[in-house]
């Protein structure tokens, strides 16, 4: 199998965002163009320099990208819409990277844009009932897993609240975050009960927004005289879930498998990572994934968290953007928003959220169904 590092190098040269927000009257065109223009400005490029675009969205409808791009110039660029549930933006980024790595294009764009409310899940048309009316609600699965781990490993509600508190506090310094208010462990525990130990502030909000990332080849870096700090994409890995074995959820097993594969493809180990953006739709996920990614030992995620290893300034900053819990999770943009954060961190441009000496970072998303996708980026 040919992997990204076997092909020609791909660099992220421009990133931009429209703030994530609760459902509003803001038009998706406005949000998408805001993120796109910010990414073009960041890269020092004009829209006609972009040769192809992959648009991640789940709830806007057919041909969202083509309508959007018609408001910034009819350049004839190749446009493909990408839907992969929560990982739509990540998959759009993957396709943009492969487009450049394969030599097909020199400059490609991943744009995630979404509105809340129109998403329809194919599982509702599967024609197969489930025993529980909640069987397709991810929150329920993770709350049940948290109950199991509470008894199995001594995980506490305070541990879940500590994850959320850390991420809300990170987001307080993030101008693109949906929530921008520091929250204490007590605040999180006192928020609305949802299920078991889960409270509302331990769960991602739904919302809308946009994020953009422009990738290019080494030749394009020179030809277009792009002078910013180049961030190279070392790996791009996607797998889907296998049947559950024992109590480990399929999404956790596939996250482990994808992490191991993406490390191998990138030629790194977990010890090389200084910053990670991961799928923390629910606080328990961050504890699980820090273990499955090898950032800490299996079964010790909550101790690693309590030690401050995942805080900004710790061993590896996890979700310095605020993650899905606090930066937000508008679906289409989420994975591209993670790339935005990793790139800012690796450039040393994350301001008060800067992880010191960040050189290698990973972005990881889960998509309903379940798929896991990961990208490793490095400052060259």
């Amino acid at each position: 199998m040919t992997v990204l590092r076997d092909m020609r190098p791909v660099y992220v040269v421009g990133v931009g965002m429209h703030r994530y927000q609760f459902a509003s009257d803001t038009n998706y065109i406005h949000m998408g163009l805001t993120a796109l223009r910010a990414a073009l400005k960041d890269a020092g490029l004009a829209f006609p320099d972009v040769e192809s675009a992959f648009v991640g969205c789940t709830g806007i409808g057919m041909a969202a990208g083509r309508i959007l791009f018609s408001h910034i110039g009819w350049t004839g660029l190749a446009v493909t819409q990408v839907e992969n549930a929560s990982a739509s933006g990540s998959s759009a980024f993957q396709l943009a990277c492969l487009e450049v790595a394969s030599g097909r294009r020199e400059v490609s764009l991943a744009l995630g844009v979404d509105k809340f409310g129109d998403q329809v899940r194919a599982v509702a048309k599967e024609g197969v009932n489930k025993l529980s009316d909640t069987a397709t609600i991810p929150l329920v699965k993770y709350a049940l897993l948290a109950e199991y781990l509470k008894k199995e490993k001594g995980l506490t509600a305070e541990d879940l609240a500590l994850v959320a508190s850390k991420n809300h506090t990170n987001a307080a310094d993030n101008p693109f975050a949906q929530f921008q208010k520091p929250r204490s462990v007590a605040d999180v525990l006192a928020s609305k009960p949802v299920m078991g130990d889960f409270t509302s502030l331990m769960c991602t909000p739904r919302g809308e927004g946009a994020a953009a990332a422009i990738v290019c080849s080494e030749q394009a870096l020179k030809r277009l005289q792009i002078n910013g700090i180049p961030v190279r994409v070392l790996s791009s890995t996607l797998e889907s879930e296998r049947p559950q074995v024992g109590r480990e959820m399929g999404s956790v097993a596939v996250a482990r498998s994808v992490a191991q594969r993406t490390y191998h493809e990138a030629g790194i180990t977990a010890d090389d990572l200084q910053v990670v953006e991961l799928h923390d739709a629910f606080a328990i996920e961050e504890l699980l994934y820090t273990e499955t990614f090898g950032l800490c030992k299996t079964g010790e995620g909550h101790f690693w968290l309590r030690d401050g290893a995942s805080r900004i300034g710790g061993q590896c900053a996890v979700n310095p953007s605020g993650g899905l819990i606090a930066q937000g999770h508008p679906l289409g943009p989420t994975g591209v928003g993670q790339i935005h954060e990793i790139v800012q961190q690796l450039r040393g441009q994350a301001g008060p959220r800067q992880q010191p000496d960040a050189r290698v970072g990973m972005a990881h998303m889960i998509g309903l169904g379940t798929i896991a996708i990961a990208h490793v980026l490095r400052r060259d």
Partner: protein
Amino acid sequence: MELEKADLCAIGAGQGANGPVLTLRAGMCGACGQLHFPITAYGCPRCGAEPGRVAEQALDGRATLLSFATIHSRLSPLITPPCVVGEAEIAPGLIEEIMLAGDESQYADGMTVRAVGVEIARGGTAVLACRFEPAEAAP
């Protein structure tokens, strides 16, 4: 009264505390010999065998409760909180999310639960919905 999800379960023999005992409709694959739940029109989800290779196998509806928690918020229009949801092993290696009758005080991890048909209203019509309850009455 009709079953709400007749593709998943059938009325069995006996009466539980909350309604008639239900059996569960699993599939046994003649190609790979693996059991799956539920049986569907699509074939074996394990090995991909055609539907004709899968035979229906009734499970007795008894399951080992692995974990459970109470839902406090209306996560779906189909549920009315508070309600209890759990995970249970309905056959060796087959773990399913289930809905439990009553409140969580009567449940414990590892206990045996059984499927029963509990009367609920769906769209103005009364139907029997599959819920699980303790298999043995409390002493």
